[in-house]
């Protein structure tokens, strides 16, 4: 049920400009204290550059201080603000109201992550799977001595992995993937794409290690190339591609 505007008991001094307004519909839920999720609506003015994060913070700052939300950089580089906006996983700071093309904005916490509170979800599993695939250069000469310089790498070689290195660990892909929707042990597109990122790096020698880790019953084979991960990724990582390329190694099509 929608309750309207829970305004804190404070004097308010800010003037809300009389421009267009959007109805922000937030799924509020604190699993420790609330019996179930409830929807709360807020009316917020917006401009053509206003993002969903902006309206959420406007609501938090002026209408309801208790909205639970994670955010930091507001420029789509930290990966904090992933949530389900009008049904799809997106970054709040990277989604403008105007591009949603509606005056009703519904926000929910990301799916396939445990809810901590309201829009804030727990990332423990993502961090663990990320660590599991050994996301670092594996090589004897990864520590420098006084006179070492760089290992050469041509721009072309950099381009072989740079797209995967763009991952901001926002978790949107894991939220969209159909396997993640039921499989609690699946490594997930985020970590698998990172496994490919390091395998594709000319400086790395850990390919066999990583292939072994992902080749298990809840590993890479639980991806069925549904592609949703790539469709929601805000940074062009294209995990679906990374996963299939990685699988190419396991099937013997690449070496």
């Amino acid at each position, binding site marked *: 049920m929608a309750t309207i505007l829970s305004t804190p008991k404070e004097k308010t001094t800010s003037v809300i400009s009389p421009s267009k307004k959007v109805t922000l519909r937030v799924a509020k839920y604190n699993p420790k204290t609330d019996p179930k999720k409830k929807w709360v609506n807020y009316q917020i003015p917006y401009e053509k550059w206003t993002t969903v994060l902006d309206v959420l913070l406007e609501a938090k700052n002026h209408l309801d201080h208790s909205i639970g939300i994670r955010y930091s950089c507001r420029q789509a580089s930290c990966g904090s603000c992933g949530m389900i906006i009008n049904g799809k996983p997106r970054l709040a700071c990277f989604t403008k109201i105007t591009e949603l093309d509606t005056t009703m904005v519904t926000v929910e916490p990301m799916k396939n992550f445990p809810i901590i509170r309201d829009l804030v979800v727990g990332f423990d599993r993502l961090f663990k799977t990320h660590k599991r695939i050994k996301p670092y250069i594996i090589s004897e000469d990864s520590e420098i001595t006084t006179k070492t310089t760089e290992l050469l790498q041509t721009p072309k070689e950099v381009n072989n992995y740079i797209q995967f290195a763009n991952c901001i660990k926002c978790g949107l892909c894991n939220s969209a993937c159909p*396997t993640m929707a*039921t*499989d*609690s*042990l*699946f490594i997930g597109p985020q970590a698998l794409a990172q496994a490919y990122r390091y395998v594709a790096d000319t400086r790395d020698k850990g390919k066999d290690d990583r292939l072994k880790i992902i*080749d*298990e*019953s*809840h*590993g890479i*084979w*639980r991806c069925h190339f549904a592609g949703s991960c790539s469709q929601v990724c805000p940074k062009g990582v294209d995990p679906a591609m990374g996963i299939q390329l990685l699988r190419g190694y*396991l*099937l013997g099509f690449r070496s």
Partner: protein
Amino acid sequence: MRESVIMKIHYGTALAAVALVAVHVLFRLTQGFVDSLTYESVIANYRFLPYAGMLEIILILLSIHGFNGLRVILLELKQGRSYEKAVSYGCIAAMIAIIAYGSRTIFMTNMGMV
């Protein structure tokens, strides 16, 4: 078994099946769909050793492929040690059962036991 080996088998069985199933279906169609299903023509087919052999191979390939497919789906649906064990062994058992049951038909008709 490593998952990659299982999945290689999954793909391999699928690929092999593509060709064989095509032959199987074409046989039905070239003979005329309804005619091909008459008792005589079916028996004749079974008695023809190469065809019966092919049927046996299709049976094995698709059982492996199909039940492994089922295993994959069930594995993704729910997790837990004992559940997963049950799924794996269950699928293997079903696979063996269906192969045995189908083979019985093929052998007995081929050997002229009907």
